[in-house]
């Protein structure tokens, strides 16, 4: 995918005396958040595989070893449950660890520490502790990595009481949400997309915070609402342009935070456009799109002029061959087609 330009969402700089803006890659924006938070707070450390000399599988930590040294850019063996669990223990005792799971496909190895330990600790022990842990990971297809390195698994984490789940689509949101996640006192699953790292966009310098739980209307429209997140936001914006040429005005709502969820923004948009299309890369069955659609159907049923619809990945592991890989997850033209059906 060629570097795609994306604007910082309207609300991205909200509540700030708008600081200088310049363009960064998504990966650079993430690194800037890590660097600024590590400078600001000595209790922040980064743990993960190949994050040191190699700079991380997607170069998000490149250069940080030189600045912060091997104790704060702490490279680990291939021990997913060990490092996430160590992060939980460190978070419980005073550090603010950012643990990297190289691919979200590997989270199945660490699921127990994320769910039974990190997420449940606070409630289970009657509020005695807090778990300021960020688990940074990335998912999605599009690089020919096939079935075990391309999944979109955010739905698993949204179904856990005690976790927060964040999925930035733009460089500005990536920086702002990661900063907010690191300062948050609860465990946050911070899910990036492997095809977003090389996308560019305007990013505020200095401290930039995007609060968790606020969706962002990335494009305003009147005929239908497209609710989506992560890389599909870029496809939705691309589709909105095509749709506009065909006289259809699409509003694109980027959730950014899946948990906590900004129901207010979703429902306000749907009540305005009276049509909703929920789009995500993960397979449809059991995906988070079902949650969004259900909320709309339960709470805005009478405001809808057409049945709500989902557009999502096919029910298959991601295939290797390039021509097949593209075909199993929604592309811009698929969104255009679905939108036209919905308004037609």
């Amino acid at each position: 995918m060629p570097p795609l330009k994306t604007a910082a969402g309207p609300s991205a700089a909200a509540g700030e005396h708008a600081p200088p803006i310049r363009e960064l890659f998504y990966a650079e924006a993430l690194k800037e958040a890590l660097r600024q938070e590590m400078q600001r707070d000595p209790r922040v450390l980064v743990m993960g595989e190949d994050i040191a000399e190699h700079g991380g599988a997607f170069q998000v930590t490149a250069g940080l070893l030189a600045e912060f040294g091997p104790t704060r850019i702490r490279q680990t063996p291939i021990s997913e449950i060990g490092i996430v669990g160590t992060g939980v223990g460190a978070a419980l005792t005073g550090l603010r660890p950012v643990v990297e799971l190289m691919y979200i496909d590997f989270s199945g190895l660490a699921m127990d520490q994320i769910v039974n330990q990190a997420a449940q600790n606070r409630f289970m022990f009657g509020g005695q502790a807090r778990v300021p842990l960020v688990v940074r990971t990335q998912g999605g297809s599009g690089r020919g990595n096939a079935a075990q390195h391309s999944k979109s698994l955010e739905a698993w984490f949204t179904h856990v009481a005690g976790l927060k789940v964040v999925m930035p689509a733009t460089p500005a949101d990536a920086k702002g949400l990661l900063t907010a996640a690191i300062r948050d006192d609860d465990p946050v699953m911070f899910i990036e997309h492997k095809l977003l790292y090389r996308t560019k966009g305007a990013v505020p310098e200095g401290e930039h915070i995007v609060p968790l739980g606020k969706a962002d209307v990335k494009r305003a429209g009147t005929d239908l609402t497209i609710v989506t997140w992560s890389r599909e936001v870029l496809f939705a914006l691309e589709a909105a342009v095509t749709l506009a040429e065909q006289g259809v005005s699409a509003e694109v709502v980027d959730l950014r935070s899946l948990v906590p969820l900004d129901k207010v923004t979703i429902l306000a948009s749907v009540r305005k456009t009276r049509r909703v299309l929920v789009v995500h890369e993960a397979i449809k069955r059991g995906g988070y799109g079902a949650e969004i659609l259900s909320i709309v159907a339960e709470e805005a049923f009478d405001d809808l002029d057409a049945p709500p619809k989902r557009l999502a990945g096919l029910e298959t592991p991601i295939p290797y061959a390039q021509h097949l890989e593209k075909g199993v997850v929604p592309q811009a033209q698929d969104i255009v087609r679905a939108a036209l059906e919905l308004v037609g």
Partner: protein
Amino acid sequence: MDKKTALELYRVMRTIRRFEQRSTTLFGENKIWGTIHSYAGEEAIATGVCAHLRDDDWITSTHRGHGHCIAKGADLGKMFAELLGRETGYCRGRGGSMHIADTSKGNLGANGIVGGGIPIATGAALTAKQLGTDQVAVCFFGDGAVNQGTFHESLNLAAIWKLPVVYVCENNQYAESFSTKFAFAVEDIALRAAGYGMPGVRVDGGDIRKVYDAAGEAIARARGGGGPTFIVAESHRHEGHYYGDPQHYRTKEEIESWKTTFDPLLDARTWLAADAVASESELDAIDQEIETEMERAIAWAEAGPPASPIKLPEEIYATS
């Protein structure tokens, strides 16, 4: 060992034993919900280890966690209140027996997931190392947890990072119904330490003096920057795996025999008397004090209000 220490260790062990006896009767009276796992027979381990810990040192505990909790200085009333589902319990009745934590004393919590606490203790030790303090983390777990992936990954991390953590395996010879004879192809579990590059120590978990010495050495090494140690304390549980366990997997004879041949309290009373450290009557007096304290704790717990209604989202999130 001086008299003060010896009597303090005896007092803690007796307190644990009595706590288990009373929680068992309370369970029998249907006052406790869920399930409980008795630590009776294994008291010397938690006691001998925690005697070397400060309030700012950390421990992680297990489903069989009452003993660890008491040895780390917990309040008996709040413990009983938790078992009784009271608002005054350590976890406000949210956790129950399998989930008691006392962060005020560095007890990061019991764990219902076998092996779940091992990386957590490792992470606590990482905090000490990262912040340059001389705190130590102790990780308690059973023989069954030794065959969990978390054990393996954590011990390797602690070894390569030389973390101030002591891993204490309480080998009571069974994981629920599964004998270590079949769960391991080696007789000495401590052998595993060598593969990680850390010292492995096997100790008689029925003799408080041996546990006290082995733990003292390991904890001092951790505090001094010498890195982790893996201790395997051999012991036996007097009761079933859980209250009501029919124990089809071992004979009545075996069960009964341990209560007489492997009892850290009987053992302690014997040498305390033999070495003329304390007289029978002194020890009986301690038992009497504990008896009184225990009943006072239970009365306090029973008087407490039931767990209050759950408030969301503040009970699941610290930032909301």
